[in-house]
């Protein structure tokens, strides 16, 4: 499958990118790196945020932002040295000799033009073609990247396409002029795991004789498709080599630490949970037969349908599913952000809906929420003292002195220094901010903590720190967690129980280790096989899952998953399977366990 590295498509020597700071000094974000990409090779640039990996990609196209300065000894792209090219010559190079694929295809398309118009422009910019010919080429290219009904899609506007389709169109567009080099900057980061797997496969197929530079923070993604990887830290390559070599025998300390921090199904996580996993006890927070329906302009969106969920003290429940599966809405219903259309939310046996605002207040102390984005969940104008103390003031507990002591205590609990108190969120990193958010949620000593993607916005090493913190707190305070996440490998390590949702319904629920080892629902199987895993040597046998999640506005008949299910039968289209007990699990499938994981993971 991998083409022999014959000749270099790209070879760069001594690339440095510097940025001018406000005080006039220059700081190097990329420090004299050398890199080569052979024809037919995918080079992965891997690193955490701020390592300079994106800047390397941009500087190859001379697209460094205005405050930046690029200096380079030589950039040889298919034999021509680009280092001396002026802006006009570079414009010719871009799109013809090197093309870029961005993370968010929505913002890289012009929203008022059809994707076809954008594509034709790319062709006509560099080739002498009539409009007719160009259109034919574009439709061809769309078909090649697996866009269904390419002729219709050609005249669609970007917002009419799903994220996965947009990224396919982006790839088609990048390859229109057949450039020898593609630079893909986090091309799958905004996508769900199953769609990510499809796009990665597509990149692999479309490589031909090209070289591809894949910029990614996700070692799992790099392990899936890269031939060689270069690990970046603070603007430098700390380690370069063949993918399998680097991942299985890392030499540099930083690489080792990075690899350890990534959760994998195939080895223990860096943050070990001590003690045995908790058996669910008497549920403290319970959603019974919950449904949430949003209606607008006569359309009904049933975001959550008849879901039963329970969390008790001391246990960790993982809630998993693709975006649009209703996870966040379910959390909103449990927290009282959304009013359930039917069903009840019970907290400690009391129906939350029947309580008045005043009766609800003491319950709020016992049930807390941590938000996904630590950049939006802290008021940037407030000091940390005020942010963390807000729940205390809202609940009117304690004197000023007591509260001050409490704020200090909870800050040290989450591992933040005391001088953080008078600073503002802007002075902290993402990981530190998430700890501040956790401190705020903990200050009233809740019994249940709901966390909506608490680590998704963080780098892996930060993730590990936050997970370690959550573990420690659970041990000390006996908190019950409901953690919403899309990262199944992580859930495998930290959850006691996993609940899988698809299109607003629970499709499978069971003990974490058993569910990830032998999933019963085909959707769980597909999710597991799509999860990128940094352990090298894993074969690329994915469960083929067709297409994308149907619109929740118009859910399929029968089993909602039958449109994408590899083992769907006639019965699945007509009869809706009920969630029922099967071995140690609850599963909603007519043929539970019929679809197995292609490579069973060692226990």
């Amino acid at each position, binding site marked *: 499958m991998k083409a022999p590295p014959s000749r270099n498509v790209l070879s760069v020597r001594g690339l440095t990118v510097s940025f001018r700071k*406000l005080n006039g000094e220059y700081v190097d974000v990329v420090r004299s790196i050398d890199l080569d990409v052979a024809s037919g090779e995918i080079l992965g640039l891997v690193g955490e945020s701020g390592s300079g990996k994106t800047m390397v990609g941009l500087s190859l196209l001379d697209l460094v932002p205005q405050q930046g300065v690029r200096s380079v000894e030589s950039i040889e792209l298919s034999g021509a040295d680009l280092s001396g090219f002026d802006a006009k010559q570079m414009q010719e190079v871009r799109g013809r000799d090197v093309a870029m694929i961005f993370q968010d295809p929505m913002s890289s398309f012009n929203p008022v033009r059809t994707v076809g118009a954008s594509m034709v422009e790319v062709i006509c910019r560099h080739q002498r073609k009539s409009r007719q010919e160009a259109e034919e080429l574009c439709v061809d290219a769309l078909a090649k990247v697996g866009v269904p009904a390419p002729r219709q899609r050609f005249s669609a506007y970007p917002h009419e396409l799903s994220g996965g389709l947009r990224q396919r169109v982006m790839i088609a567009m990048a390859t229109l002029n057949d450039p020898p080099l593609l630079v893909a900057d986090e091309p799958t980061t905004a996508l769900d795991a199953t769609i990510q797997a499809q796009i990665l496969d597509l990149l692999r197929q479309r490589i031909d004789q090209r070289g591809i530079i894949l910029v990614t923070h996700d070692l799992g993604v790099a392990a899936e498709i890269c031939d060689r990887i270069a690990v970046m830290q603070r603007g430098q390559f700390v380690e370069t080599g063949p993918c399998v070599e680097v991942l299985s025998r890392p030499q540099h300390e930083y690489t080792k630490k990075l690899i350890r921090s990534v959760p994998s199904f195939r080895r223990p996580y860096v943050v070990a949970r001590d003690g045995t996993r908790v058996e669910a006890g008497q549920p403290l927070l319970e959603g019974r037969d919950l449904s949430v329906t949003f209606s607008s302009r006569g359309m009904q969106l049933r975001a959550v349908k008849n879901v039963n969920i329970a969390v008790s003290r001391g246990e960790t429940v993982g809630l998993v599913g693709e975006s649009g599966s209703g996870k966040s809405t379910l959390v909103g219903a449990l*927290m*009282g*952000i959304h009013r359930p259309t039917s069903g009840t939310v019970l907290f400690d046996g009391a129906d939350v809906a029947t309580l008045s*605002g005043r009766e*609800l*207040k003491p319950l*709020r102390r016992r049930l*807390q*929420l941590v*938000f*996904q*984005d630590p950049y*939006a*969940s*802290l*008021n*940037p*104008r407030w000091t940390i003292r005020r*942010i963390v103390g*807000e*729940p205390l*003031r*809202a*609940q009117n507990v304690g004197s000023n002195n007591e509260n001050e002591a409490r704020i200090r205590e909870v800050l040290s609990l989450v591992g933040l220094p005391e001088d953080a108190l008078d600073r*503002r969120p*802007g002075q902290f990193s993402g990981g530190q901010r998430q700890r501040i*958010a956790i401190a*705020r949620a903990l200050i009233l000593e809740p019994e249940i903590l709901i966390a909506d993607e608490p680590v998704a916005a963080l780098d892996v090493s930060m993730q590990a720190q936050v997970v370690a913190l959550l573990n420690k707190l659970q041990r000390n305070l006996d908190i019950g967690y409901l953690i919403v996440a899309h990262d199944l490998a992580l859930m495998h390590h930290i959850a006691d129980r996993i609940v899988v949702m698809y299109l607003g319904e629970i499709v499978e629920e069971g003990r974490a280790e058993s569910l990830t080892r032998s999933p019963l629902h085909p959707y769980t199987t597909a999710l597991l096989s799509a999860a990128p895993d940094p352990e090298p040597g894993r074969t690329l046998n994915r469960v083929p899952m067709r297409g994308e999640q149907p619109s929740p506005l118009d859910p399929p008949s029968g089993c909602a998953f039958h449109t994408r299910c590899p083992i769907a039968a006639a019965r699945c289209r007509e009869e809706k399977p009920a969630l029922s007990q099967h071995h140690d699990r609850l599963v909603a499938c007519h043929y539970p366990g019929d679809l197995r994981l292609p490579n069973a993971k060692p226990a």
Partner: protein
Amino acid sequence: MILLSRQLSRARRLSAAGRGNTELVAGGALILLLITLVVFAPLLMAHDPAASNLRNRLLAIGAESHWLGTDQLGRDIWSRLLAGLVWSTTAAISATLISLFIGAFLGLSAAASPGWPRTLIRWFTDTVIAFPGLIVAVCVIAIIGQGWLPMVLTLGFLGWPVFARVTYAEALSLMERSYVTSARLQGVSRGSILLGHIAPGVMPTLLAMTAFNCADMLIAESALSFLGIGAPLGAPTWGNMLAESRQYLLRAPWLVFAPGIAIVVVVVAANLLGDGLTRRYRQKGPAPLL
């Protein structure tokens, strides 16, 4: 002592804020100068701005004891300029403050109360915008007569919709932030959320808008006075000075230039300050000014 050191550190922060922000420094310096002129106006006036002296009609700039000359009734231009500065800037600032308070209050209320109160406020805002300002001004003058207060009230009550709209839009986007949701979930009352989270967030924008709006109001005031429906006839305002000087444009052009340049200076100062504030918040993010 602690208070003093806090004041000092504030002053230091403010001066640090100005560094590299030419608009803020220039605008702030001009405004400070204008404020000084307003405060010391009675001391700086060489003559009574209303005292006419027909023997000294239309003296040119540089005349003895009338360094900016005199007008057609022999009144001292420099004194009238100062009196007009007091009259016009106080009117512009008062009108802006009225607009600011009504606008911010209605904007925040609309953002905080979905449903019919919001709809009602937005309809009301649109209705006020639809009123032709000049006609309203004429009506007000016809009913309650000319003067400082009627004019300020008219301008203030006509000017708030723009504040209301901006406040509403900004507040609405702030309400979507998860820190506001978090506060709601903690049981923080709606009032505390508005005062603690939303209002401080809207403040920087409103501050910059206030500066711009002062300039607009000053021009509006001058225009109304020029048309004869603003300040009472003969009152020493820049608009009146402009209106009266029209007939002497060729014989005594300084009569036009003096109030004209004065208006330009104040408007430029307010705009510079507004630009500087905007830039400061864009650069530094929403750090508190004080």
